[in-house]
């Protein structure tokens, strides 16, 4: 479908005006603009990466854009997810993104898939598009998108971000490597913090998402040299780009010479998520709600430890809490501090949402220190106990 019969595609008078700056470019021209108009692109995720890339693809005149997302717009998304606006907070991201795309370019088709991408629906959704862009935010969906692209024979335009750094490439294009050739296995859950836990520079996904949009347009036009076989690394703090060579792995279980993965699998399982949950449950870390905690705070004989980072502690804190960041507990120094503070007292630990505090309690339990996790962290405290503590 990437080389459609352009005889059936016509540019309208509005198109000639709208795409004038493309039509002037010999590398695009009327022929190229018709290719863009005939093309269809599936954007998986309408978040940090999906926002800028969908905006540019719409403006460029991609004839049909599919959007997959099941999430709703949260105010904390607006710092980077520039396709969404304040008035869409609490409403579905795909609806918000489709409305914005339509206001930029009402002459293109937008397909809305308001569902999570799963092993059950990925092939069915993906089969109707020329190429697929991975703008997801988690390992299971990234392996799912990759495997679906390989099984469907579609290029996978990849981008991912972490704090101030990003990666981008084009997988499974013209016999090039796939995501599994680069990373055969995902890291164990919890090793790489999510954007919600680790933070991310709002502009960063703009840079990486626009690289993805550029690659998509180049593939459709058939111009230039794509990132196939090259992993682009971007460091926004140094303002430095580096590239590394990627090669297809003939032993790759999905795109190799003798593939063993011939249908979509359980990607939660592949990424160790049920196993990690079971381990967490087996540790049986007791929990307390923020309201129960509030009733206890006045009592003597309790200690509340905050395991967030110092800059998060500056945003707001629960009165009487003591800051000992998770990283200190993990490297051992913090364990002694906790032991000293908790000596003979009831120990409670909180973070932003409850994930890092559970991790801290796991580490402490291995060292013989036992305590209770504050469910929902300081964000729950802000919502249910004291709204003067900012939720972030």
């Amino acid at each position: 479908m990437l080389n459609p019969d352009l005889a059936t595609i016509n540019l309208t008078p509005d198109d000639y005006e709208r795409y004038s700056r493309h039509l002037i470019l010999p590398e695009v021209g009327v022929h190229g603009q018709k290719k863009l108009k005939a093309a269809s692109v599936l954007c998986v995720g309408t978040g940090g990466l999906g926002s800028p890339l969908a905006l540019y693809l719409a403006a460029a005149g991609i004839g049909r854009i599919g959007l997959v997302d099941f999430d709703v717009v949260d105010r904390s998304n607006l710092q980077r997810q520039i396709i969404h606006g304040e008035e869409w907070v609490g409403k579905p991201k795909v609806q918000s993104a489709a409305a914005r795309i339509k206001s930029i370019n009402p002459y293109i088709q937008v397909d809305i898939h308001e569902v999570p991408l799963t092993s059950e629906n990925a092939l069915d959704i993906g089969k109707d598009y020329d190429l697929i862009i991975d703008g997801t935010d988690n390992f299971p969906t990234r392996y799912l998108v990759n495997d679906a692209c390989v099984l469907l024979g579609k290029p996978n335009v990849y981008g991912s971000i972490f704090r101030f750094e990003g990666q981008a490439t084009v997988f499974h294009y013209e016999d090039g490597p796939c995501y599994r050739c680069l990373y055969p296995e995902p890291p164990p859950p919890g090793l790489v913090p999510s954007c919600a836990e680790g933070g991310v520079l709002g502009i960063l996904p703009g840079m990486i998402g626009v690289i993805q949009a550029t690659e998509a347009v180049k593939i459709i036009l058939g111009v230039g040299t794509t990132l196939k076989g090259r992993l682009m690394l971007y460091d926004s703090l140094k303002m430095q780009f580096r590239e590394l060579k990627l090669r297809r792995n003939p032993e790759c279980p999905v795109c190799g010479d003798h593939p063993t993965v011939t249908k979509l699998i359980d990607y939660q399982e592949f990424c160790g998520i049920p196993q990690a949950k079971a381990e967490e449950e087996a540790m049986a870390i007791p929990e307390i709600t923020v309201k129960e905690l509030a009733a206890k705070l006045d009592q003597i004989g309790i200690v509340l430890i905050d395991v967030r980072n110092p800059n998060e502690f500056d945003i707001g804190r629960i009165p009487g809490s003591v800051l000992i960041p998770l990283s200190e507990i993990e490297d051992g120094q913090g364990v002694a501090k906790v032991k000293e503070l908790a000596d003979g007292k009831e120990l409670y630990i909180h973070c932003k949402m409850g994930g890092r505090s559970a991790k801290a309690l796991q580490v402490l339990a291995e060292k013989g220190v036992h305590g209770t996790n504050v469910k929902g962290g300081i964000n729950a405290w802000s919502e249910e106990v004291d709204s003067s503590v900012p939720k972030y």
Partner: protein
Amino acid sequence: MVKVIIPAPLRRYAQEQESLDLEGQTVQEILANLIGTYGDLKKHLYTEEGKLRNFVNVYVNDEDIRHLQQENTPITEGVIVSIVPSIAGG
């Protein structure tokens, strides 16, 4: 001496260092010296069986050591060794 680049997700196990200069004739020696300096990195780079983890890629300049001589890849003066783990944010 060669420069070893520590990626952002692993910097908290390396006292927030972005890179450091290390001695070594092979990738294995360089990584051993790296772990010698920052012991906490060990479990993030190697499995319990002592194998390099599959989600941590090591490059000598722009080549993946999987396509060279794995950890036995010789190191010459002035090359850059990069550790590139997978990230998933979006």
